[in-house]
């Protein structure tokens, strides 16, 4: 299952990726797999050095909180309960070869 999902993610990067970070929801839609399958596959791809998982924390006012400040939101100037913070996942391709010979490297 993980292998199939990894293939799908690699296919997305090779064929559809145009730059920037990829939100995990793009991959769940593209691969038609549950979020947990995608996340597991991403972890495996990350361990192979093919992608990097980027985690971002968002406060209830939809401000992105710097990772080292969580759960304090500098913009709101509020220290939230951790249960109020939403964790979001993005992907940065590192070394998956894009079709037409473009190689993505950090």
């Amino acid at each position: 299952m993980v292998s199939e999902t990894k293939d799908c993610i690699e296919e997305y990067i090779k064929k559809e990726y145009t730059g920037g970070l990829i939100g995990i929801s793009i991959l769940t839609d593209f691969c038609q797999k549950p979020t947990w399958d995608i996340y597991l596959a991403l972890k495996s791809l990350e361990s192979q050095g093919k992608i990097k998982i980027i985690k971002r924390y968002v406060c209830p006012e939809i401000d992105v909180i710097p990772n080292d400040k969580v759960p304090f939101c500098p913009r709101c100037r509020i220290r939230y309960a951790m249960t109020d913070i939403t964790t979001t996942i993005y992907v940065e391709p590192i070394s998956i070869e894009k079709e037409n010979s473009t190689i993505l490297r950090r």
Partner: protein
Amino acid sequence: MKEDNKKRLVDDLKLFIENKQYYESKQANAVNCNNMFDMGKLYENESQLINSVFSTTNQNTTEQGNSLENLMKALFGRIKFLNQVAVTNRDTVIGQIDLQITPIDQTAYDILGLIERPQGIIGECKNYKSNKSNTVEKEEIEKMCWRCCKSGNLGFFIGPKFTSGALQEINEFNLYKESICKKHVGILIVPLNLEIIKFIVENKINFCYFITWSIFKSRDNSITSYFK
């Protein structure tokens, strides 16, 4: 558990879940209890296991204990950011552990609302019916406190009822753990009551959100007020 406390718990839990889902719905790329929880054939297996847990006939003490451990394994097993949920029943340096729960990575602690990360998660299941009062006593909680202290783990304590002494012990541990334990970061005792777990299963409430709420309420030391 008094009816008004049960009603208060259900109302608070529902509000908590509604709030969480409202904020999470604003973030397409969120990982949360909604999309990391397996809703397939929701609680079909667990409903049967609940019946077994509450059965008063044809069970020896081992079967009674096993039925609760299997129920908890099935419930935690639906939470997909927990990599493995094993019923161990094995003796370790911190005594016999019923449930060993392994998070997939640090993101699991984020979703559970744990900014301070414990070194792991363990669970203790008590389903004794031979005990006259059918309750978890203070001494059982003291053992769990010691285990959590020594291992640095967050501990769920699942039991039918808790004596007032047991509840007080949980409160004191959660409040003063920093002065009691060397490995205190992220550790907590989180009591779970069988009556509520039955309610969660019967009403098909997302168990992941329930666990997150229970941890939150244990941290602010208010969870035991529902169990009186």
